[in-house]
């Protein structure tokens, strides 16, 4: 069967790819487009490592079919930084040492950016529940949550 041709916008760039009907967005990003910043931890939506944003919604890219994204916008970890400038979330992850192995980090950052867009002043509990779908096995989450809350503070000051 012929492959499906999909036109979509990834990190602001119009992108075209071919895929099979059952291929996930995660597979196409990583294997088809070489965008390996989005990580695979489970392929069943349980770990958050493959988090991306489709049409403004945070989703697990392992549970999105690539063919669904025609005409939609996809934002990944590769598009988070503004050119050469890290976002406050990225910068706070570095300052706090909020990563050890780093495999969960792209998913956490994509999710945390979305959290702070929706809720610029989250409580610790709100941050923990919003990010509960992102598993980290190294840090015990302490420094991650602190980095997110501090990034929120930095962003609020920036806006003020």
């Amino acid at each position, binding site marked *: *069967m012929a492959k*499906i041709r999909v036109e979509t916008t990834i990190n602001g760039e119009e992108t075209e790819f071919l895929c*099979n*009907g*059952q291929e*996930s967005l995660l597979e196409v990003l990583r294997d088809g487009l070489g965008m390996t910043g989005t990580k695979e931890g489970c*392929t*069943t*939506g*349980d770990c*958050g490592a493959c*988090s991306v944003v*489709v049409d403004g*919604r*945070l*989703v*697990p890219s*392992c*549970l*999105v*079919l690539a*063919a*669904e994204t*025609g005409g939609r916008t996809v934002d990944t970890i590769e598009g988070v930084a503004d050119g050469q400038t890290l976002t406050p979330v990225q910068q706070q992850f570095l300052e706090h040492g909020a990563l050890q192995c780093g495999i969960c980090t792209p998913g956490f950052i994509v*999710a945390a950016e*979305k*959290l702070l867009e929706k809720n610029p002043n989250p409580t610790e509990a709100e941050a923990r*529940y*919003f*990010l*509960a*779908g*992102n598993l980290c096995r190294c840090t015990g989450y302490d420094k991650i949550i602190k980095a997110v809350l501090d990034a929120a503070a930095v962003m609020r000051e920036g806006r003020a």
Partner: protein
Amino acid sequence: MSAPVSRFEAPTEVEAAVALLAEEEGARVLSGGTDLLVQMRLGAGAPPLFVDVKRIPRLTAVRLDSNGLRIGAAVPAAEIYENDEIRSLWPGLAEATDLIGSTQIQGRATWSGNLCNASPAADAVPALIACGATAVVAGPKGERRVAVEDFTTGPGKTVLERGELVIEFEVPAPAVHASDAYLRLIPRTEMDIAVVGAGVALTLDAAGTVESARVVLGAVAPTAIRVPDAEAALVGSPLGDESLSAAAAASTAAANPIDDKRGTVAYRKKIAGVLTTRAAKVAYERAQAR
């Protein structure tokens, strides 16, 4: 031979979706995909045809009026619980929706998927039943309305026939002094399937006496179940220790769960009672406050 390849279609009209589902045996509706694609990954195999229904305007529309809510079947959980009006009118239903998986999953998962997957542990289903919701089904013979309560017939089984899909839900507006609550028990704080879920909707009179009650349990029977004895126990008086413990006992008695990796029969029966009491209290407070 080679590995099977699936077709993918994204119709923009209900009729086209129905036609696709009717023509291809084994075709599957794709709304959120959070059950369908997981089952595929865990060995169920890919269906011959995915019918992505998210480009059908009627399936993504949200309309609220004095009669209640009419909402497209492909609206994701996140959009539902982010809706302030829905949260204030049906807080328990919003809670249940907010409990379906992680934030990421909520960006995809839908009520229709939760219902059609027909897991006894689906979080939205007891809450929808408690609120008296109806599913609008489209199929080759046209549209029909099925109470959510009557929709699931067993684990993985529903009233849907070939070519049919859920296109909308209708949730009637609550009465003046009415509200709902949903609670579930999971071992962690997030990311688990309900060991037991309990949805309670109560309508009070001006004095605070419970006029009507719906008590629905999840994960304790092949489908979500209403507990008429618990409902009867709650009706006719303001919520008190006596009616609450009678309702809890009724829920424990009505629960008919299995032992599995998520919980034992004895545990689930006990928890069914505990959650009935707790959800009833929350629903009562909310109803009083309205």
